[in-house]
């Protein structure tokens, strides 16, 4: 800054100084030059004048050659101190006369053309000398100019002094005058530096009065204007910036709000996800912790998940199961190893029908070929839209339960038998004693014996009922279902109790029972007997027990009503519980086991019916129960009754053989032995598949078939048998545990066929049937050629 300030000032000063110097020097040189010129002009004029005079004076002398006169003429020059030499030359240019006052200088030996010549300290001139216009010689004069030169030097010294003085004055003036120019510029520079340093446009350069209106003034004004404009722009910029900041802040606030909303939504989503995850974890935990096996199948019946318990029980992992049919993997065969067709699979019912299906007695297979008993329930799964998505199946390995049930059943069976044996002796001994056959017994003793007998009987009933109940409830006793005529079972039950009713003075009224039921007739009779027995037991003499029945849409309702003392309202539902007695004294006075109604309930439940007790109006109790109605044709007479057969008919055939298809090996043995005694060969198998094989290979003369086989349904066996042309005319004896209805008979009668119910005939009857059938077949064979 200082340097720059110095710099502009120095430059200005230098300019002024140089200008001044140049001016002074030029003036001085002009002055000196003009002085020198003026001095020379005067000298030339003098010399011209003198020369003219001399020349004219010397013409005669020269023409006349008078040297003396010529010298004399020249001598006239001696008062002219400045002339240092003079000479006259003749017309040939040879010196004629000379004037040489100073020894140091002589006239030149030859002439030079006319004119003035400036030599070092002299001015020399050559003049022509004429006479009557003819040149006769030349005059030479040399004037001393040293005086003039000294004077010019003096001038120069003076001029130098003047220059120096004027320079000094110029410097002072410049120093003073340059302020007007340098100061504003320095000021501008300072302000510019300030602006650049502080970045502030609010400063202004000050304007001196001196500069108003001049270029510097304009420059300062322009600069200040520029600053003002910059400042204004800056201000606007700041303003814009502020607005921008405001806008940005506003936008930022909006963004923040939006962001917060997003964040809140995100949190909500995360929370929902966490809840879902928790649910999923809990579901997984439940699935993983469950001791029951759980698996899911998709619509194709292929497994989609399997819990660890299920995997353990099945001996398979989900990965092994994927993409394969669950039925084919674990449910392919029954207990005997016979294949179960997938279309009949009860597991698939849930999928096909969209209903829950439960099975308390089934079997699942492991990969190693072993199986385990299961109970399971399978339920269809639906997605959010209610479309079927698959099914879930929950199963439980019931091996242990089966074992316990078996143990319990065996225990009950053994105990009841083991109790029965000593009771037989006791009962027999007491009976004989009480009869008096062994001798007279005192009256009180007789009474005690009666008590002992009746309680022994009661104990036996109790054992019987416990055994019965256990067997029904364990499902060990399969119901032997068949078509039952309602009237017939009621009549049978009534007949069994008529004598007791007569003893008690109770009238039994049987109303019409119209309907055909589907059930186990023995069990239905047992139920009715129990209920009627109860009614008699709890009715006072001379009252009536009414039996009525009504057929509904799907079930038949039996009703046993008495006019006894009735059952208190609060006990109506509990009477079916075991050992339930309305009055604590009942069991003693009435001799019941306390299990009768419980057995009734078990039987009815096993049939899929209901049993309940209610108040009878005006007095007594009404017990009702339902049994499903048969759907289809009514009961028909067993075929055996209509067959006209002669046991004695001789067998006219070589080595007739009989195939016995019967899963009860003991019975089969007896049947075999019976037929063998008649001279027949026998073959035996316990399963349907084997029967088909034997038939094809051996072609027996007759087939005895039990319908209830472990592997194949009897109907299926018959169908397969009759497809074979070699077998289609072989006589068939359907020897079944229950009566075969006419509808079933026609299904089975695909060739010569007869029916015999096991319970209706002894082995002897069976033998007669077989022999008759064989005889009939022989006759038919004999007739055939004639018919053809």
């Amino acid at each position, binding site marked *: 800054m200082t340097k720059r300030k110095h710099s502009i000032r120095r430059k200005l000063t230098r300019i002024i100084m140089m200008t001044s110097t140049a001016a002074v020097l030029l003036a001085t040189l002009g002055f000196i030059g003009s002085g020198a010129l003026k001095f020379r002009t005067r000298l030339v004029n003098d010399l011209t004048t003198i020369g003219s005079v001399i020349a004219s004076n010397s013409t005669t002398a020269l023409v006349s050659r008078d040297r003396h006169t010529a010298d004399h003429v020249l001598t006239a020059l001696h008062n002219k101190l400045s002339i240092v030499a003079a000479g006259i030359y003749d017309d040939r240019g040879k010196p004629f006369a000379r004037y040489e006052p100073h020894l140091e200088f002589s006239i030149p030996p030859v002439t030079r053309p006319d004119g003035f010549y400036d030599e070092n300290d002299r001015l020399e001139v050559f003049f022509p000398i004429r006479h009557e216009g003819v040149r006769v010689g030349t005059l030479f004069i040399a004037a001393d100019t040293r005086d003039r030169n000294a004077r010019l030097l003096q001038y120069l010294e003076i001029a130098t002094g003047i220059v120096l003085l004027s320079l000094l004055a110029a410097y002072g003036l410049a120093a003073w005058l340059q302020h007007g120019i340098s100061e504003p510029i320095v000021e501008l520079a300072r302000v510019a530096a300030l602006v650049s340093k502080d970045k502030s446009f609010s400063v202004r350069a000050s304007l001196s009065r001196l500069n108003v209106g001049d270029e510097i003034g304009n420059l300062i004004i322009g600069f200040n204007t520029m600053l003002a404009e910059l400042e204004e722009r800056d201000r606007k910029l700041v303003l814009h910036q502020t607005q921008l900041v405001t806008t940005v802040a506003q936008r930022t606030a909006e963004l923040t709000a939006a962001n917060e909303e997003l964040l809140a939504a995100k949190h909500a989503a995360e929370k929902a996800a966490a809840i879902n995850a928790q649910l999923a974890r809990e579901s997984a935990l439940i699935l993983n912790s469950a001791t029951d096996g759980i698996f899911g199948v998709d619509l194709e019946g292929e497994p989609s998940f399997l819990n660890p318990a299920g995997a353990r029980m099945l001996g398979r992992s989900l990965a092994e199961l994927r993409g394969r049919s669950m039925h084919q993997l674990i449910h392919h065969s029954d207990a005997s190893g016979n294949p179960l067709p997938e279309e009949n699979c009860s597991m698939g019912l849930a999928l096909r029908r969209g209903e829950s299906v439960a099975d308390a007695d089934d079997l699942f297979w492991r990969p190693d070929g072993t199986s385990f008993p299961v109970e399971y329930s399978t339920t269809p799964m639906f997605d959010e839209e209610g479309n079927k998505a698959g099914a879930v199946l929950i199963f439980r390995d019931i091996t242990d339960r089966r074992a316990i049930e078996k143990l319990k059943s065996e225990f009950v069976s053994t105990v009841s038998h083991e109790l029965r044996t000593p009771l037989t002796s006791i009962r027999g001994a007491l009976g*004989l004693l009480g009869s008096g056959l062994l001798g007279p017994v005192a009256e009180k003793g007789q009474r005690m014996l009666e008590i002992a007998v009746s309680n*022994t009987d009661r104990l036996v009933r109790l054992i019987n009922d416990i055994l019965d109940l256990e067997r029904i409830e364990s499902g060990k006793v399969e119901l032997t279902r068949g078509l039952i005529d309602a009237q017939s079972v009621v009549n049978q039950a009534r007949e069994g109790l008529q004598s007791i009713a007569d003893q008690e003075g109770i009238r039994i009224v049987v109303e019409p029972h119209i309907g055909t039921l589907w059930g186990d007739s023995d069990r239905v009779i047992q139920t009715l007997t129990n209920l009627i027995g109860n009614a008699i037991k709890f009715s006072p003499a001379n009252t009536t027990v009414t039996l009525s029945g009504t057929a509904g849409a799907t079930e038949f309702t039996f009703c046993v009503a008495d006019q006894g003392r009735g059952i208190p309202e609060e006990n109506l539902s509990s009477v079916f519980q075991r050992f339930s007695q309305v009055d604590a004294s009942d069991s003693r006075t009435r001799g019941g086991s306390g299990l009768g109604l419980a057995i009734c309930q078990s039987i009815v439940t096993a049939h899929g019916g209901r049993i309940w007790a209610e108040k009878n109006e005006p007095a007594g109790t009404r017990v009702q129960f339902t049994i499903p109605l048969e759907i289809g044709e009514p009961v028909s007479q067993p075929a055996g009754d209509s067959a006209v057969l002669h046991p004695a008919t001789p067998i006219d055939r070589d080595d007739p053989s009989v195939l016995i298809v019967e899963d009860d090996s003991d019975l089969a043995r007896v049947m075999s032995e019976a037929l063998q005694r008649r001279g027949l060969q026998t073959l035996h198998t316990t399963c349907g598949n084997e029967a088909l094989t034997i038939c094809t290979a051996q072609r027996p003369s007759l087939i005895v078939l039990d319908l209830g086989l472990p592997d194949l349904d009897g109907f299926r066996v018959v169908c397969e048998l009759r497809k074979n042309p070699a077998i289609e005319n072989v006589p068939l004896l359907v020897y079944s545990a229950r009566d075969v209805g006419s509808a079933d008979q026609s299904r089975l009668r695909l060739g010569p066929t007869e029916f015999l119910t096991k319970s209706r005939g002894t082995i002897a009857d069976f033998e007669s049937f077989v022999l008759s059938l064989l005889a009939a077949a022989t006759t038919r064979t004999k007739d055939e050629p004639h018919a053809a």
Partner: protein
Amino acid sequence: MPPKQILIIDDENDIQEVARLSLQLTEQWDVMSANSGAAGTLLALSEGPDAILLDVMMPDMDGPSTLRVLQQQGVRIPVIFLTAKVQPADRQKFMQLGVRGIIPKPFDPLTLGQQIREMLAWG
């Protein structure tokens, strides 16, 4: 007419005794007894009784086995099971073996003879 001859086969001597006494006293039948299936079979073959009362559950040779042996030997004497096995399924199975009847244990000593007579259609 000589009294009917009855063979009782039961491993329980007490039951044998009660039954024998019962039939002797109520029916005046000639009653003999054996306490095993084998002994009973031999007795049946040698004596040819009119009817056999046969227990079902016996060690070594049970009722059905004894019956079978008797049948195999061509013995046509009617056999009645006297048994503690009273379930319907058992009943059915026994009937199919060819027995004439089944009398459950415990039996009433006063009506035992009557039951037997009814089963055998004895007047």
